[in-house]
């Protein structure tokens, strides 16, 4: 089976073509113009990951929402579950950029962190 993956490492956007074996193993990999393309496409085939960026509710802040992100990428398949996990989170202002909102988020070994300072409303 052939699988096409658009490499997103740089704006060249190479279309990498992977030949996939019966057990999902990569038999061949072509179309990439550099080594980063090979690494990316391999990872994207075997264990694709994404950084989640979203918001959580914040109490007493100058805004009702605090932007947050995972400090490392998480498995792509976990995005939905991760969003559900943010639905009921409420943090308290003030917050500093980088503050950990949830440690070891979903047991994935990553932290959910604040992506800005958010002052308390006076």
């Amino acid at each position, binding site marked *: 089976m052939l699988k096409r993956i658009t490499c997103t490492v740089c704006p060249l956007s190479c279309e990498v073509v992977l030949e996939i074996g019966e057990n999902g193993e990569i038999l061949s990999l072509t179309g990439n113009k550099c080594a980063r393309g090979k690494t990316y496409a391999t990872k994207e085939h075997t264990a694709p990951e994404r950084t989640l960026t979203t*918001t959580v*509710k914040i109490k007493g802040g100058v805004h*009702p*929402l605090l932007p947050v992100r995972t400090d490392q990428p998480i498995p792509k398949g976990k995005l939905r579950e991760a*969003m*559900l996990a*943010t*639905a*009921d989170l409420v943090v308290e202002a003030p917050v500093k950029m980088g503050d950990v909102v949830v440690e070891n988020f979903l047991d994935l070994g990553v932290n959910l962190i604040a992506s800005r300072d958010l002052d308390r409303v006076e």
Partner: protein
Amino acid sequence: MKREAKTKKAVQVAIVGGGIIGTLTARELSRYQLDVLLLEKEAEVGWGTTKANSGIVHAGIHEDPGTLKAKYCFPGNQMFPRLCEELDVSFKQTGILVVALAEEEMDMVHMYYQRGLERGVPVRLLSREEVLAQEPNLSEDVVGSVFAPEGGAVMPFELAAAAMENAVANGAELMTESPVIGAWVEGEKKYLETPTHIIEADVVINAAGLFADEIARMFGDDYFRILPRKGEEYLFDLELAGLVNSIIFPVPASKISKGILVIHTADGNIMIGPTSDNVPAKDDLGTTYSGFERIFSETRRLVPGLDPRKVITQFAGLRAASDRGDFIIEFSPNVPGLLHLAGIESPGLTAAPAIAADVPKMLEEQGFKLTPKENFQPRREGVVRFRQLSRKEQDELIRQNPAYGRMVCRCETVTEAEIVDAIRRGARTLDGVKFRTRAGAGRCQSGFCQPVIMEILSRELGIPAEQVSKRGAGSEQVKYEAKELLGKGVS
């Protein structure tokens, strides 16, 4: 709600419809010792045909002799300067030009000129050179023109809202979101049913615009039809202000419409339109590709510099034309005490003050005794328009009220204090704020200020943001709170 459970209320005069006709009539009647109630189906007055009107105060030369349109147009025109001064409404006597682009069109120009002279309308004939001196951006093809200096432009929504505000200040009552869903006669009294009320009235004034025939029919009075006729308009960025200085009419090709115009609005924007298309439905308010193409091809013949890329918004309105081809201003021959002010199509806005001024006379002719109020106050409390003030005045205003220092709409320079004032005067929605203050009416079309206006409306009206609407229930702009949809999926 069952009819028996509804609140009952008795008044002397009930007006159905808060368009320009209904609101100005309410104001005229508030000069007298009368209980006057106006029922409006929308969240605010002025939202039907009035809102989407071209805003032209016609000079009185277009209407055929012998029509009610002719009878009321010029007298209406003459009332505008004082009316707008009393109500503090934007009005500009820009003058109206009817422009001939070919020799053979000059016959019509002369006809309008003669008609003007006969009616006492100030008019002048202009040569090609004179027209071009006055309007240098007109087409080189112009041959000549008739100029009526007392024609102009008004903000029609502003006028309706101001008239209603003044009527209420003088004792009239307004009920919004009150569509009439039933109507009947018992003895001398007439009854109107809304979703919440039963109104008993001695006189019902039918100013229901597009729906005037339906109101009449509820009373069993079925002798005219309202035939909606659509007009599309395209509004330009203020950048084009000054492209024309007056309102430019072509020599019309047909008798049905006055042609497609280039309008200098009372706010200074350039606007072009309207089309004139009979449509089957009274809610057909969509703009169309074909409308856009016709409007631009027609108006660019007059003013070649009209650049489609500078359009900031477009809209369509429906004229409430009657099957008589003229206004219907008469007591019903079938239902005593039911006064129709119907079929008010162009020049209805111009005619409106004159029609409204006739209503008390018509009531007296029917035997109603009207006693003037001694304390009638014709002036509306003035509106602060921050952008029109000098730097020094602006500075002083902010010192008195810091909310004038909070700029909400950057395109049109509208402050928080002006928006709060508009809400105090009756604005309930995003469109209501926009039409009253211009906040959100500019080049970014509320991209930047809508969230802020929403926050102010929510705060001042004490409702959550999800209930703040564009123009009444059903048109809420943001539907859910953050995180509300998570886990619920989409049906």
